């Protein structure tokens, strides 16, 4: 491998390291966008599941889930 090839390789590696750092910080803030929804889902389940829900959709899902235990 020639010196110029190695220099190009070094430069590419430095660039990759920098991009990896940017990805890491983007991931930190992404938590709210992606996992912030964990809070949403969690509290939804809590409020939904604590009581009987009577919408058609939820009734249908409940029925599907219960079916194996009714048989």
């Amino acid at each position, binding site marked *: 491998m020639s*010196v110029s090839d190695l220099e190009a390789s070094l430069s590419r590696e430095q660039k990759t390291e920098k991009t990896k750092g940017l990805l890491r910080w*983007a991931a930190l803030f992404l938590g709210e966008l992606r996992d*912030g929804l964990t809070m949403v889902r969690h509290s939804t389940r809590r409020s939904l599941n604590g009581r009987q829900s009577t919408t058609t959709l*939820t009734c249908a899902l409940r029925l599907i889930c219960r079916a194996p235990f009714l048989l």
Partner: protein
Amino acid sequence: MQSAFLIVAKGYTEKQVGALFFAFGLTQFLAQTPAGYLYDNTENKVRWLSTAGVLTTLMTLFTALFASDNNFMLMVFIKALQGAITSFIPPGLNSITQGVVGSVGMTQQVAVNEMMNHLGTAIIVLAGSLIAFALSPNIGPLFIVSPIACMGFLFFLNRISSDDIDHLAARGLKLEAHSEDPGDLVGGMASLSGDESSVSPMKLMTDPLLLVFIVVCFLFHTANGTILPLVMQTLAVGNGGSGILMSGLCIVIAQVLMVASAKICGSYSQKYGRKYLFLIGLGIVPIRCAILSGLLIWTQGNPSVFQQVLILSTQILDGVGAGTFGTMYILVTSDISGGTGRFGMSLGLTTAAMSIGGMVSGYLGQALAQDLGYLRAFQILMVLSIIPAAIYLFFMPETLRDPSKIKDINTTTQPENGELSKPKSNYVEMV
């Protein structure tokens, strides 16, 4: 927080909120695979991911500002749209990651990404819970967190230039990013393609290995997703300001453990392979259910403060299980999609299986608890959670390419023949 906000501040009923988030979950499930397919076929990955982040935030703000009893159908539409848009986030981040570091660097980088992700969530949930506790029941101002996080996300993401992403590596068609050599991809499904073109979506979706893994993902989330809400209900937490604080504490404990689990996955999965670490993640769930069943028998439905702390401490196991799974499923998907050119789509399929598993889980757990009681619910979930572990143990091979053929670049920095040596690097390469 959104559902609590909608019920308390906007006067929505539980069933209206249920319909909103059902629409959200359904479109999220449906859009995961097409989102992954799109990332496989676009070179504007950063732009798509940025747009998804901005739109998600705008819709959260729209919900906070404009939700009312008079525009319920509009809100259903908004939530359905938001569900579809958020599905562009996981395959986007992971496609970009694989495009930057290649398959060989995924272990380290995915672990770091996941650690930071959980850390960010833990910080925000902790701060959010304290603010909500102070402001309860008027928690509207809490939504300001979303645009702040979005700005931080956009600032760092948009400093990544498109040239830094090797789009062939992002799809899993090359082992190492920015390399001329596609590398030995035989460990994945390279035999399906045979060249540098990607396999057809139908061929991918009928691959037995991927199908088995999708079933594992679905069953894991079906069993695991409902345990936390059941624990919370068992302790009767979730009411008033202290309930918000306790809920937040539960999530924070789990998230902190997830940071540690992601770190362990990054350090050891490249060394010892994926299978045993993944089995630890899967095996934690039945253990957790068994402990919870034991504690419920002990407390006889009336736990003391000490017993409540013991029940809450099972969240530590949730952190280990979900943390390990969250990191390892990306790595295993990357492994098995190697050579197909369909990493994004494969990740979309596995994430969709997890979404639908999570949705079913909530209803399954509640149906069990209501019909059979909490003790029996935990016992049934324990049995259910053994199934994905058993399937993985007997039907999934070790997906990491032969670990004996991997060398760490750190060990290969000795100068040869007077030439300059490469600097130390954290990632590993195939030999």
